[in-house]
């Protein structure tokens, strides 16, 4: 495909002929549309995208994208995506997953993909519930939630996905609500442009089994006060009047109001997504309502050698420096003997 063709792609080019079958009102629709609008903004041919998913409502996503796609088995998508990327590093590999798929049955693959920093994008739809199996608590459900599989309330502690990722050595973590399509597009583009495992946590609403679970953060009336939109190099200011900010007080973050108690804009922390030290990124990632706004946007984006680049350079070096050009060269090397 020529460059011209790439630039003329539209969201329609990424829409498959399959009927979308999520529940009416599901947050997934907005995510799908945002993806279909984001991809035409990238300089990549349509045939070079691959969407890999596991099992769950979110994992039906590849069927609706008119790209190469593979709806696989529960939890294993990171491993399959890894194989795709290693087989052909030119492909742009997106893994679509949910909180159950990524963090329960697929937890092992999730942490190891991030540890290796393989160049894939993991889009995690976090609705804090199992939807496809009709409403059991998930690894991100808040402690105490009552569901059919735990009618007396869970005693499980939840994962915070981006915190878990940081613990795995993540080079890119971000968060975005399903209620903000423009921000989703921007974060998808940032994830694709980052080399390494990019984790995008989407606060997604399950309208049937966990409606408004993120309401305290994403609700129209509260979102300005409960979301801190991070921008690299910009001060961490938020609030309906854009007069609140985050400062570091001792070893803890604190919400302050500019203009009160002598606080000026200069006192507010400036976001540095490229800082290698995870301390501040960890504090931002774990801020939670109602004491703090929830960090949105790109929390961390640091450069580090990717697994696929590491493998590619080892292959290149070994191929360049070997005396073996074919398998016959290998088979006839070392101790051999001739029978006449």
């Amino acid at each position, binding site marked *: 495909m020529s460059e011209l063709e790439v630039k003329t792609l539209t969201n329609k080019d990424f829409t498959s002929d399959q009927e979308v079958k999520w529940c009416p009102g599901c947050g997934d629709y907005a995510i799908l549309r945002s993806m279909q609008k984001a991809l035409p903004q990238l300089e990549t041919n349509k045939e070079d995208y691959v969407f890999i998913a596991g099992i769950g409502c979110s994992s039906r996503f590849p069927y609706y994208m008119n790209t190469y796609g593979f709806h696989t088995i529960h939890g294993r998508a990171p491993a399959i995506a890894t194989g*795709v990327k*290693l087989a052909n590093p030119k492909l742009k590999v997106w893994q679509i997953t949910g909180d159950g798929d990524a963090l329960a049955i697929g937890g092992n693959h999730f942490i190891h993909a991030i540890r290796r920093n393989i160049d894939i994008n993991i889009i995690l739809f976090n609705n804090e519930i199992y939807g496809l199996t009709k409403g059991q608590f998930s690894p991100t459900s808040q402690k105490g939630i009552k569901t059919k599989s735990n009618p007396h309330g869970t005693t499980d502690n939840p994962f915070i996905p981006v915190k878990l990722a940081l613990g795995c050595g993540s080079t890119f973590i971000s968060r975005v609500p399903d209620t903000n399509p423009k921000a989703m597009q921007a974060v998808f583009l940032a994830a694709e442009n980052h080399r390494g495992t990019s984790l995008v946590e989407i606060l997604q609403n399950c309208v049937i089994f966990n409606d408004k679970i993120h309401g305290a953060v994403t609700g129209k009336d509260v979102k300005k006060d409960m979301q801190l939109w991070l921008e690299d190099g910009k001060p961490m200011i938020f609030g309906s009047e854009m007069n609140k900010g985050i400062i570091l007080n001792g070893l803890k973050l604190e919400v302050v109001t500019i203009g009160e108690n002598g606080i000026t804009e200069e006192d507010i922390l400036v976001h540095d997504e490229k800082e290698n030290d995870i301390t501040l990124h960890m504090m931002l990632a774990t801020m939670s309502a109602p004491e703090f706004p929830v960090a949105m946007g790109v929390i961390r984006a640091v450069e580090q050698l990717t697994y696929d680049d590491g493998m590619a350079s080892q292959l290149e070096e070994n191929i360049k420096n070997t005396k*073996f050009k074919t398998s016959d060269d290998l088979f006839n090397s070392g101790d051999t003997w001739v029978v006449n």
Partner: protein
Amino acid sequence: MSTKNNAVDLEKVVIKFAGDSGDGMQLTGTQFTDTSALLGNDLATFPDYPAEIRAPIGTVAGVSGFQVHIGNVEINTPGDIADVLVAMNPAALKANRVWIKDGGTIIVNSDSFTKKDLEKAGYQTNPLEDETFDAYNLVQAPITSLTRETLKDSGLDGKSIGRSKNMFALGMVYWMFNRPMEQTENFLNAKFAKKPLIVESNIKVLHAGYNFADTIEALPSSYTVAKADIDKGTYRNIMGNQATAWGFIAAAEKSGKELFLGSYPITPATDILHELAKHKNLGVKTFQAEDEIAGICSAIGASFAGDLAITTTSGPGLALKGEALGLAMIAELPLVVVNVQRGGPSTGLPTKTEQSDLLQALYGRNGESPVVVVAASTPSNCFDWAFEASRLALEHNTPVVLLTDGYLGNGAGPWKIRSVKDMPNINPLVATQGEDWQPYARDVEKLARKHAIPGTKGLEHRLGGLEKDELTGNVSYDPDNHEVMCSLRAEKVERVTNFIPNQEIFGDEKGDVLVVGWGGTYGSLYTAVKELREEGKDVSLAHFNYINPLPKNTAEIFSNYKTIVVCEINKGQFVSLLRMKHPEFKYEQFNHIQGLPFKTTELKEHFNTLLS
């Protein structure tokens, strides 16, 4: 080195080196093997080592052995029992007590028969001092002290001196069988190139052992084993797992694909990963995954993206891979799963051999999930079966399970080096740009679909584990479509039978007894049948490598014999398959399940009862 005047010519001989895990017996055995191979003997080897890396020193549990069978005649097994045993300590002697031929030669390191060592081995009294081994040619050599004496002025530390004693034993055996020491000297020079003191000391001890054997009169004669009469060509010694790895390298070259291995370490399959990991220079990609499931899933991803993708494992790992194998099956992607079988169930006997994963390979998945199953039958033909498994996977777009076993994987023998450039090409079933293509449109003959590889313009499509429409591959819950798809997938695997050769017979086309085997038991079954035929017995062998589907002429073969006996190292898995596929025949069974290969003697004994 000239052959000594009083040397006795032998047709074949079995030698076992046994000692503590730390005594270097695998290396000693390998050296003797390589030297014999270079002399032109036919041979087969088998290592026998404990599951524990370092079991307590001096105990029977910690005994590591290496058996080698050399001959001037065709050799197909590592031998039932040893003619010569080298035992480096009492535990090694005790562990191998029943594996020595009556009247055989036993070389013991007499320095190791102290009260403490005897106790560790569980001996109440010193067996060297009573009548236990009166019926054997027992050679007591103070190997430890003579090694120390040899190296006392070498400047080598005591620990390293202790480690050199295996070279003394090797030197003695080299003398006994008139073998030159150059090959081992070259090996030591190369292995310890940066440690000249180690090289010099080891060579000195090797010669000391050789000279000691020459001097003492305990070894009354020495033996020669002449060159075997084998096919002309260039040979090398190869282990089964190495041969498997190399078969895939050749298959990648002949299919024009890059080779991808996704794997998780598991005994006894890990050496395939080790071997392939060495060959980035040939473009081989290996991925050590976080678990067995990620091993196969990464391979499925690589297959989807266009590589020749394989995963390697052993029994418990195959169990973990089951769900993903079903995905590869319904997605109809090429994939080779190697199962180097070991003793089961559960963790079972990790370092021992068995054929008990056949039914798991055939049926160990949910739903109607047929895959092609093939089995290698000698260490060196693991090469051919890895190649053939790749061919079937790529030309029929199906997962293929390749069964080998611990006995084949760790066993070794001479391999007539294949010329890969002269091997036939493999032609993957791949859709190309501009082609009128549907994801599940099928080849008329094979019923296989063509795969469109990501990156191919215009052929964007979605695969998945949900049932799919028989043409478009879109998700389909249609009842009739599901039935059609289940039948198509089964028929596709069945039709592989049209693309494989007929089953061959060793022996007569009609007759009294037909011995049936599959996979790793070939060497022992062939040897037993051959020896009985030399005695004039009416017995033939049909040894299967294609398990699913079976070769087309299977029933025709079976109809030509009065008695069919199916021999397996399990409780009767292949015979169950045969009873299901060809119920018109009556099958006798011979099954052992001890983690050990069949002994030729026990097979002959049993076949004789069927003949009389």
